């Protein structure tokens, strides 16, 4: 099987049952994406596929051979953090950090969705402009759990970047 991850081509021959998450972590050594629940409930495994955020634990690697996959390793590096990553550090948007790669990937996808004008469950109007209020950010990020409960600071970090984008 052939994969394109963070712009790099990889060859791998995993068992057909291998999830995209297990391919990344166990076969390609890209351990930034985390396994929390392995059932799509916690969001720790969130990656971007063709720019869209998905749960990498709930999809088969074999189904993504022709896709552009972006993981946290492709979003920023320790020497060159992405703006969202810097904002998480500035706002103390984590304690243990296990959910953070998923939070960052999810927020990256989420900001793009908002830019496209996608409404959410809490949007008053379905076709109005999207202003990313705290309520909007919380609703749009509800697929990412943080058991340290750093939610207020996560929202602060995302709001800062959303404001810069606007």
């Amino acid at each position: 099987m052939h994969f394109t991850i963070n712009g790099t081509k990889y060859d791998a021959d995993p068992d057909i049952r291998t999830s995209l998450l297990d391919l990344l972590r166990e076969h390609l050594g890209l351990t930034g994406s985390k396994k929390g629940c392995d059932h799509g409930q916690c969001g720790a495994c969130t990656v971007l596929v063709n720019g869209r955020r998905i749960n990498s634990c709930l999809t088969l690697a074999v189904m993504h051979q022709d896709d552009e996959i972006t993981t946290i390793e492709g979003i920023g590096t320790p020497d060159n953090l992405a703006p969202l990553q810097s904002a998480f550090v500035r706002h103390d948007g984590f304690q243990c950090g296990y959910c953070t790669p998923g939070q960052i990937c999810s927020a990256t996808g989420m900001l793009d969705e908002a830019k496209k004008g996608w409404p959410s469950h809490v949007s008053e109007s379905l076709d109005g402009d999207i202003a990313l209020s705290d309520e909007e950010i919380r609703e749009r990020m509800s697929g990412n759990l943080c058991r340290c409960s750093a939610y207020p600071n996560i929202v602060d970090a995302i709001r800062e970047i959303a404001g810069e984008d606007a």
Partner: protein
Amino acid sequence: MKTFDYSRADTPQDAVKGGAVGNTRFIAGGTNLLDLMKLQIETPERIVDISRLALNEVEAMDDGGLRIGAMVPNADLAAHPQVIKAYPVLSRALLAGASGQLRNKASTGGNFLQRTRCYYFYDTAVPCNKREPGSGCPAKEGFNRIHAILGTSDACIATHPSDMAVAMRALDTTLVTLKPDGDRRRISIHEFYRLPGDTPHIETVLEEGELITHVELPPAPAGKQAYRKVRDRASYAFALVSVAAIVAVDDGKIANASLAFGGLGPMPWRSEAAEAALIGKAPEREAFEAAADALLADAKGFGSNDFKIPLTRRTLIAVLRDLTEDAA
């Protein structure tokens, strides 16, 4: 997870050829199927990948309706300008379901076929008639807070989990399918799901290898639309009760009402009796109470879910009030 043979279909015709072989599952978004395969509740021998089929368009139809490809992701459908404009109840229902990540992956066709989230269905250490026909149903005397109050049987009291399908039922949707012999079928959503009876493992009228290719919405009905979902968390939780409602008021009387419910039954629930109780009546409390009475006439709680009966009544009345208060 049990192993399986995998193939990717390039056309719907390819897919149904593959799907005609016993114990095969189509995979589109896979968000529910893979979850169930990990737990070995689903153990297909063959997986046909339909995620690349060219069924991802939303098109206006000549009659004013909308034709939705089965592979359109839930997120795209919710944000589609035509859906927002003419079928806001559908956008609202989709946005009330799952998380951003799941809506990006889950397909329109697959959403109809989600399996129940009954705890006992998910727990392979206990009996379940849906998972192992004839083994029994511990939910009836067990923890049944999330379970059904309408349409249940001795064999099964599980609910259908979808929000999308509730709105689709209120909108009189038609599902278009392709069968392995090449025939196409058009199935009204009102005929699509089966009551559990003594065969709760058979949930729809789909035949072996039959593939949902499109979903067709009739022209937008007159009236205002709303979807209201009551759940244990503010976001990312299944419905305890949900109501999809389309109500038109003309000259001080309710002229048209379409009501569908989630969280109450083994399928997205529709009550003609509740709708009939509204038609021709002034949009006032008395009519709303009568509609709730009609909807809940046969409702039966199983202990922990008894609260759903008054909760449904209040939710329905609140939705009807919200939709008609300008017109009253």
